């Protein structure tokens, strides 16, 4: 990968009448890479993206896309980027194909070119059979696919995808990942936002973890994981044992083999130098406190551990993480 800078932001900030959505965001995206913005709901991912595609004006700071300032040279930026919004914006009366035809005209594509790309894209997103139905009759996932086809129609140098696979079934997700990789191989720069850890981990060359409008960590998934050092011991406590979690945490704190401890709703995540030394200590402490352990395991750091380490909380509290092999 060459190291030409495709996108650069400098201390970007956005305040929506009193609500600070993002602040002090500085990052670079290199040409030809897949760059991810990973964060929970409300982190400011969409806001960042909408600034970069010139739909929003930043309150502070600057951003350039392919060397063009997003405020002063918005027209140049618009010509070279494609955008797939998070919420679908489907015209009520047009069919899927008509949406794409309209975009072809808006981007000054020739008729043949438009037809050729439409055929290719409809095949890609598997909408060929539904292309001539009014788009308002599509299911959520079909609308999402149409959105993606719309973003790709102008054959942009940089593609922005806002939560590309939100709400899609597993096959569609995998297909879209494949296609993103395919575009990447063809040299397209791709910026996507996601709150799926596996998506960030498997798809992105580099990513920025965003929480509360700030960048908490920046790097490739493997760098980020290696940056944590050591392994993770996860302890899940039995039902009703959570009252003792604080006692357990403080008993473990300061032990030589333990680097840090974070509390989860179901138990503890313990970052350790080596599990061989730490595991007996953890079991011993639990035993001493008569704390019943439901489940314990250790693993190399995963992206969810990186997320917890940098933000102090899990990306989604309610349910356990998807398994991500590292």
């Amino acid at each position, binding site marked *: 990968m060459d190291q030409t800078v495709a996108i650069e932001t400098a201390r970007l900030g956005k305040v929506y009448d009193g609500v600070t959505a993002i602040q002090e965001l500085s990052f670079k995206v290199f040409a030809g890479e897949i760059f991810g913005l990973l964060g929970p709901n409300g982190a400011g991912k969409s806001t960042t993206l909408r600034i970069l595609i010139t739909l929003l004006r930043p309150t502070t700071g600057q951003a350039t896309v392919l060397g063009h300032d997003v405020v002063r040279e918005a027209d140049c930026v618009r010509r070279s980027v494609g955008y797939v919004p998070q919420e679908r914006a489907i015209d009520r009366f047009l069919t899927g194909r008509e949406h794409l035809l309209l*975009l072809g005209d808006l981007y000054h594509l020739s008729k043949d070119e438009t037809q050729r790309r439409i055929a290719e894209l409809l095949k890609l997103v598997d909408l060929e059979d539904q292309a001539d139905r009014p788009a308002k009759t599509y299911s959520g996932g079909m609308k999402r696919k149409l959105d993606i086809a719309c973003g790709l129609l102008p054959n942009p140098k940089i593609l922005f995808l806002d939560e590309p696979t939100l709400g899609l079934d597993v096959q569609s997700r995998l297909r879209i990942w494949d296609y993103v990789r395919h575009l990447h191989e063809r040299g397209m720069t791709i910026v996507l936002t996601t709150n799926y850890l596996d998506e960030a981990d498997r798809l992105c060359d580099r990513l920025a973890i965003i929480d509360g409008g700030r960048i908490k960590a920046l790097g490739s998934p493997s760098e980020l994981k290696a940056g944590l050092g050591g392994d993770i011991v996860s302890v899940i406590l039995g039902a009703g044992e959570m009252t003792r979690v604080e006692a357990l945490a403080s008993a473990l704190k300061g032990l030589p083999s333990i680097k840090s401890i974070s509390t989860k709703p179901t138990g503890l995540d313990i970052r350790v130098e080596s599990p061989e030394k730490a595991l007996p200590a953890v079991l011993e402490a639990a035993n001493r406190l008569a704390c019943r352990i439901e489940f314990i395991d250790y693993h190399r750091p995963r992206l969810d551990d990186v997320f917890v380490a940098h933000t102090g909380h899990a990306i989604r509290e309610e349910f356990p993480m998807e398994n991500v092999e590292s």
Partner: protein
Amino acid sequence: MTPVQAIIAKELRSYFVSPIVYAVGAVFLLIFGVLSYVFVVNAGNQAVRLMQVQGAAAQLNLNDLVLRPTFSFMAIFLMLLLPILTMRTFAEERKLRTVELLMTSPIGINEIVVAKFLSVYLIFLGLLTLTGIAPLILSLFSSFDWNPVFTGYLALALLGAMFLATGVLASALTENQIVAAFLSFGLLILVWLLGGLGNVLGDTSIGNTIAYLSFIEHFDRLTRGLVDTKDLVYYLSSMVLMLFLAHRVVESQRWK
């Protein structure tokens, strides 16, 4: 297709699959028909009365008795009808966020505004053309001066352009179609009433300026068959002003 043509095609398409055009069109044609019918009957009655008084068939001026009043009343009805046509132009697209499709593409805001305006204007011109049946039928049974009829249509076409441009501006100001419709009623009625206000102030320079701002006087002159550059300038410049303001509003929203 050029981007403007593409947007016009898309707009016309949405108009014709929605009931708005049919509702507005039906009411428009109905009012035009009823008005001209009423004035024709009225003219007939007057002819009968004149015959009784003078004892001979009088030559009636159909331009004054039928066509001009029809045009004048239509002007007032357009104030109520056209905002219904324009209310969705921007408001609906902003509400449904489909406007983002246009906003992130490399076309200019001026192209978007012009295309939206032209699409409603084309619909209006189509309806106006349909009303041409009324004078045509009238000409089969009587004779009248066609010149004021043509200038009357010109007057309606210009007035419509101004009203529609105002409606597009109102629609750009809000996400709510009903609010957009009321906003353009309000604006148009305000401009209309300026004529009365100007008359109250009398023949002073302020009075004349204010009266100039109202569309009524310009309209009357045209329906009498007088084409004055001053009146044409009035309509075209107010239309351009409204579209320019709409452009500014849309532009400022892009940057919210």
